[in-house]
């Protein structure tokens, strides 16, 4: 049985015991599958999985679909089923160790993954208006309508991935894929090597483009705060809605800090940004700092508290003790 068939079979089992199972369906784009919040076995029949199954669906485990309760009604305690790639499954680990979900409240259908495409690279190579029908996995990489691609299509995050076979899953028996050696912090190192002035100028340019649509935050499953500090205007605001450089810089700095050591590099913020701002650089740098100083990697060890959610007396910064 192929992994996709297995996924549908498991999702059908789960759909009866879960509030919903979220998986991928083909949408109206050729370069991007989309979330399908399945509530019936017929919905599950539409599930697909492949190199265009890019969105991190664990987002829908933190966006609440519960309707307001009637008086006397008790909340729906059934778990949620989610189709996860390796990077998405790491998000669940992170959400569990931050006590957003109990582990048994999330049923993970872990899908071995050979890497997803980067839609921006795809548009560069094939044009924004192309007639490609489908992108699939072949024996040695992607196939674009059955042909070898015109160039490199692999998403940046996939170069750094160590979990092509998800590290946590509730479904056994998926056919595993090869795990190539993951790149370290390469992209980050060349960025660190930049002259601070140049680096600042680089980010000034990038942040100036931001329209503060907050797609990066809203697509991020780890930005689950009910009220984000950026939205708080009363009684005191940290920043304003101006799309000017100082406010934009504040927003991005704040978000990067809040995600330090928590970001699992699912790449969603960068993918959804309509202004092509390289947000993974910021979060990657924070991940590197967290790793070097506190030896912590997001989404790895479910038993260790998250960097910002825990407190360790042996941490380097010991002034509190």
């Amino acid at each position, binding site marked *: 049985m192929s992994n996709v068939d297995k996924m549908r079979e498991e999702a059908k089992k789960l759909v009866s015991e879960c509030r919903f199972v979220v998986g991928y369906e083909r*949408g*109206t*784009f050729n370069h*991007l599958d*989309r*979330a*399908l*919040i399945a509530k019936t076995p017929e919905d599950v029949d539409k599930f697909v999985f492949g190199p265009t199954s890019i*969105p991190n669906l664990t*987002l*829908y485990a933190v966006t609440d*679909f519960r309707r307001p309760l009637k008086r006397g009604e008790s909340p729906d305690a059934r778990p949620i089923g989610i189709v996860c790639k390796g990077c998405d499954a790491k998000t669940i680990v992170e959400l569990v160790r931050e006590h957003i979900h109990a582990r048994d409240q999330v049923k993970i259908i872990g899908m071995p993954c050979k890497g997803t495409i980067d839609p921006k690279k795809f548009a560069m190579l094939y044009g*924004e*208006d192309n007639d490609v029908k489908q992108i699939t996995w072949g024996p040695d990489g992607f196939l674009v309508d059955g042909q070898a691609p015109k160039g490199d299509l692999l998403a940046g995050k996939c170069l750094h991935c160590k979990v092509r076979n998800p590290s946590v899953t509730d479904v056994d028996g998926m056919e595993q894929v090869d795990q190539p050696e993951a790149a370290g912090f390469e992209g980050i190192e060349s960025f660190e090597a930049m002259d601070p002035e140049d680096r600042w100028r680089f980010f000034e*340019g*990038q942040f*100036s*483009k931001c*329209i*503060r*649509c*907050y*797609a990066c935050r*809203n*697509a991020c499953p780890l930005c689950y705060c009910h009220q984000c500090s950026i*939205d708080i*205007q009363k009684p005191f605001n940290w920043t*304003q*809605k*101006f*799309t*000017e450089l100082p406010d934009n810089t504040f927003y991005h700095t704040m978000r990067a800090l809040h995600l330090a050591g928590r970001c699992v590099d699912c790449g969603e913020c960068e*993918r*959804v940004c*309509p*202004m*092509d701002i390289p947000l993974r650089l910021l979060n990657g740098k924070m991940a590197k700092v967290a790793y070097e100083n506190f030896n912590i990697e997001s989404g790895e060890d479910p038993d260790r508290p998250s960097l910002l959610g825990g407190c360790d007396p042996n941490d380097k910064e010991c002034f509190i003790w």
Partner: protein
Amino acid sequence: MKVMDKTQLDKLFGAGYEVIAPVNTLGVVEYIKVTVPAQIEFDFYNSKKPAKSAFFPATEKMFDIKMQDRKAVSMDESLPEMKDTILFGIRPCDAGSLTYMDQLFNWEGFEDPYWNARREAVTVFTLGCSKVCPNSFCTSVGGGPKSKTNADVFVYEVGDKLVFEAITDKGSAALDKMGLEEATGAELEAAQNWEPAEPEVVDLDETPTKLDDRWPDEHWVDVSLRCLNCGICTFLCPTCHCFDIIDYKHRDKCARCRVWDTCQFDDYTVHASGHQPRETKQSRVRNRILHKFNYIPHNFDMFGCVGCGRCTSLCPVNIDLIETIQEVEK
């Protein structure tokens, strides 16, 4: 009709106008002030940021406020100081959106001085579309790649040349100042007989009436479940015009500004009491679509959408406008 070589774009600047034109800023095509021809981008389907930003910037100062001892002592209207400006290379759909925006910002006797100041100063040079934008349906909502609506000058791209057709007096005045040659021969013929490719037609004629009774939630829940409530589809829509008004304060300086706002955000429509009448995703998606395809048609007798396709192309979770409308209409 007039003609010039693309290499002679400096003539645009020689006519005593300021020039706003499409510029590729780190991968984002937007309309900003340019000073040299080399900045102008020609190779794009449509700009990512709609040309509305030339008239309705994302952040705009409305009032200067003087402060003394942390109290406001005076407040003066601060209108944009506009020189005569050529808005070069705006696409026909974005030019089309001005029909609605002009009426909206001058609705029922209220005249918006900020919009109008910019609008009056600008001479619109519409650039015809030689390729069909992904997800566009301009011809289904009254526009098209060669639509001259709201153009003062219409520009044809003929190989390495640009052919200019004056549509209004304002347009011909600008062309006269640029000192261009008369178009003749092959270029003139190419411009006159230009038949660009058009996007597929979608039947939307009945949509405004069909949507009349589609208010109940049941029609909207499934189509909006995956929405992120980000502001992309609205900030980058040429006919979205919502703004919030906020004060910028720094020591004794203060300015009252307006900034783009969007009905997709969850702090939009919050009442002073804290009550949020538009609480759910479906109600926000519903508002966006009904506004464009039901309320505006009823209030202004036109579509509130010019079919540019940006909202569909740029939505990160593939909420496809046409697909959604068709689903809701069912």
